[in-house]
């Protein structure tokens, strides 16, 4: 790993849903250009971790520093402007907006994002359907759109919540290719993924979560040595 400061540094992150204490001191770091995957059983706090980093969960304590900026102190609508984009599990495609409108909805937060034409080169399906309502797209196309609209904004880092959930293998493969392309372009990615095979193909490193905190972290190269632990915690 690089010795420079991490792009995203999370330490002692706690979060609550109503009365429920969901995160119990999450610590993790993601360096620029890395793809890091959070593993863990359902309901263990992976999605909550992404939402708490993004500020979508306001009842949170601890430290979240992104590119030198303290995200804990920012109102929700200022967070993205630090250069961090969120792709939610439910994809968040808007039914009253066309594909085009969905694509240009997130404001550009930094220079260096892709143009709409570049995005359409990468996603020709979306171009064909640009005037359809966003939710008329297939699940796979909606996932593509959810990622594509973040590429325009110039963010340095993407938080991706289960991008392959419920998608056909051929689409999952396309999303894998897409993440590889993004990585080549220098995008930093924090991924939550249930699909272990998919995750092991795209990730540089893993964090393993249990009971609302990170219990282990290791690079993809050590995956084989860690299978016993993974079997035990994930049941994979």
């Amino acid at each position, binding site marked *: 790993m690089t010795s420079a400061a991490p792009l995203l540094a999370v330490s002692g992150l706690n979060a609550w849903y109503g009365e429920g204490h969901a995160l119990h001191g999450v610590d993790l770091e993601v360096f620029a250009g890395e793809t890091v995957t959070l593993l863990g059983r359902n309901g263990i706090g992976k999605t909550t971790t992404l939402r708490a980093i*993004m*500020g*979508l969960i306001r009842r949170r304590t601890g430290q979240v520093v992104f590119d030198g900026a303290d995200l804990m102190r920012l*109102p*929700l*609508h*200022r*967070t*993205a*402007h630090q250069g961090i*984009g*969120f792709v*939610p599990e439910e994809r*968040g495609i*808007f*039914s*009253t*907006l066309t594909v085009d*409108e969905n694509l*240009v*909805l*997130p*404001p550009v*937060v930094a220079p260096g994002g892709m143009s709409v034409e570049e995005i359409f080169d990468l996603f020709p399906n979306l171009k064909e359907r640009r005037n359809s309502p966003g939710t008329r797209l297939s699940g796979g196309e909606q996932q593509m759109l959810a990622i594509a609209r973040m590429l325009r*904004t110039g963010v340095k880092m993407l938080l991706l919540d289960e991008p392959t959930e419920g998608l056909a293998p051929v689409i999952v493969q396309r999303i894998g290719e897409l993440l590889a392309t993004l990585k080549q372009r220098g995008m930093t990615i924090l991924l939550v993924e249930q699909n272990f095979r998919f995750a092991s193909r795209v990730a540089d490193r893993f964090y393993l979560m249990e009971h609302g905190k990170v219990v282990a972290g290791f690079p993809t190269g050590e995956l084989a040595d860690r299978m016993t632990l993974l079997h035990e915690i994930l049941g994979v």
Partner: protein
Amino acid sequence: MTMIFGIPVQALLGQLLVGLINGSFYAMLSLGLAVIFGLLRVINFAHGAQYMLGAFVGYLLLTHLGIGYWPALILAPLVVGLFGVVVERLALSRLYDTDPLYGLLFTFGLALVLEGIFRYYYGVSGNPYAVPTLLAGGTNLGFMFLPNYRGWVVVASLIVCFGTWALIEKTRLGSYLRAATENPRLVQAFGVNVPLLLTLTYGLGSALAGLAGILAAPIYQVSPLMGSDLIIVVFAVVVVGGMGSILGAIVTGYMLGLAEGLTKVFYPEASNLVVFVIMAIVLLVRPAGLFGRDA
């Protein structure tokens, strides 16, 4: 004299015109309510009072400062819109996290306070507001005599309704509004200042009410109760159209105005009831409203 179903054509067309004019106000007012409800999830009971406020701003500008109708047509919505912005920032924005009932109660209370203040100073009898000279008189359409000002109100309301519809459906700002109506937290997480969007939306909705008020001033009298008389019907329009549906509010506004006009011709006794009868039927058959999405 030409007759249709035993009714003189003149009487029929005359009442249809009255219906169209009333419908113009229903459309403009229910449009503002729909815009506010769509994004803020607040049932704006102060809408009638804001309409009244628009008329009074015009009246007071004229009587105290000698500022006439045309500048007032800009100033009244501006003043009422700013008033809405202040109300949203100071009070309404603090109620979003509570039960929707609080927003309703707050705006209802605000309406009572506003009406009470104006009733204290200006009484309940209306104050006349003259038709601007440019639009005085009327035009003989051959089959009937159309007062120019009333023609203008129909045209103006169509422009306002179409303009607001285009703003919401066809612009970048409108796409933010529509997206935030569906999922405000996600839109805010994308970096859009949603709290500001809410403030501006309430301001816009209030300004629409204010504009309807100044347009109404020369037709109805300027009176503290003019809003509460109208707003009940407007709520019925919103229910028939479907809460939060922009197009539904506009189309239903004109339709129910015309339905009211027709009823005046054929069965005058029911003219005040017809809107509510239609509302009851729509609620029974299609609870989400004619243009509403099923919840």
